[in-house]
């Protein structure tokens, strides 16, 4: 079975080709999806890549959530289909209400482009099930607005339901303020929806997909999704 990864392209998306490259490294198929289309072209997984969709005007993701493609993405997610929002894609998912919370200006007010370590908090998700437990992932960030915020009740719910997927940590897996690159509440780097089929994260796994790039651990998210789909009946 071939897994089809649809990669959304909005005006201002910048990581779509990197995502396609990561998909091709897994041996699966990358399919570009245009923001003005409503057709997911039979894709099994939808990736909303990083960038500045619609120039990030008003707020990051605020305009992109109304793109025709997003109606199809919403439907795909509702039916249990896999959706991965990376960086700007995470911001879009929050604005679209597919994930709770919001992403704010980094507390440093600086654009941060640097390697980070991520602790996998939940292997329940199809995107993280194949990650070896207790092994922090080395994946870079590249954003100016990645400070995760959710109101106290929403945050408590995320924690209680095991929906915090990833937290920024040091290379030993320890959570600390020092390891937090943007001021995110509780070092949160990625979260899941209630069903676990939608993952949003600020770091860029597609930029850590081969040793040449300093880490290939980001590929685990792609491989995890592929293994999940391969194990589904039918």
């Amino acid at each position: 079975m071939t897994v089809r990864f649809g990669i959304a392209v909005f005006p201002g998306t910048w990581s779509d080709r990197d995502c396609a490259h990561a998909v091709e490294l897994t041996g699966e198929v990358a399919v570009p999806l245009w923001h003005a289309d409503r057709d997911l072209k039979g894709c099994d997984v939808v990736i909303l890549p990083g960038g500045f969709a619609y120039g990030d005007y008003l707020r990051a993701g605020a305009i992109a959530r109304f793109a025709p493609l997003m109606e199809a993405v919403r439907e795909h997610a509702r039916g249990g289909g896999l959706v991965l929002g990376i960086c700007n894609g995470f911001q879009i998912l929050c604005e679209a209400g597919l994930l709770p919370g919001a992403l704010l200006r980094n507390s440093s007010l600086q654009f941060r482009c640097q390697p980070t370590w991520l602790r996998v908090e939940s292997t329940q998700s199809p995107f993280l099930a194949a990650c070896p437990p207790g092994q922090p992932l080395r994946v870079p960030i590249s954003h100016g607005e990645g400070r995760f915020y959710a109101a106290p009740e929403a945050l408590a719910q995320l924690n209680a339901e095991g929906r915090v997927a990833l937290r920024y940590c040091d290379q030993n897996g320890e959570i600390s303020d020092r390891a937090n690159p943007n001021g995110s509440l509780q070092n949160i780097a990625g979260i899941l929806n209630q069903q676990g089929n939608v993952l949003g994260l600020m770091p860029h796994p597609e930029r850590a997909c081969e040793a040449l790039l300093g880490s290939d651990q980001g590929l685990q998210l792609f491989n995890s999704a592929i293994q999940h789909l391969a194990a589904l009946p039918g």
Partner: protein
Amino acid sequence: MVVTLKEVVNDPQGLVVTDALHALGYPQVQGVRVGKFISLELAEDDLESAEARVEEMCRRLLCNGVIEDYRAKLRLVPDA
């Protein structure tokens, strides 16, 4: 209308501007919040329906209720 981060949301821009104003010799500055200003022109006949429309636009697009509050002031402008 003005859109600002909610009081409970940390505003690092506001903190930096506070520090800068203190450094310029304004110790009386107690706090700064930085927001954005949006000017809207609507074709509506009365303020009440305009207000309802603005409220709806804020909810759907102009303001993210998770992190932001807005204040809008409306006035009628006679047709030119």
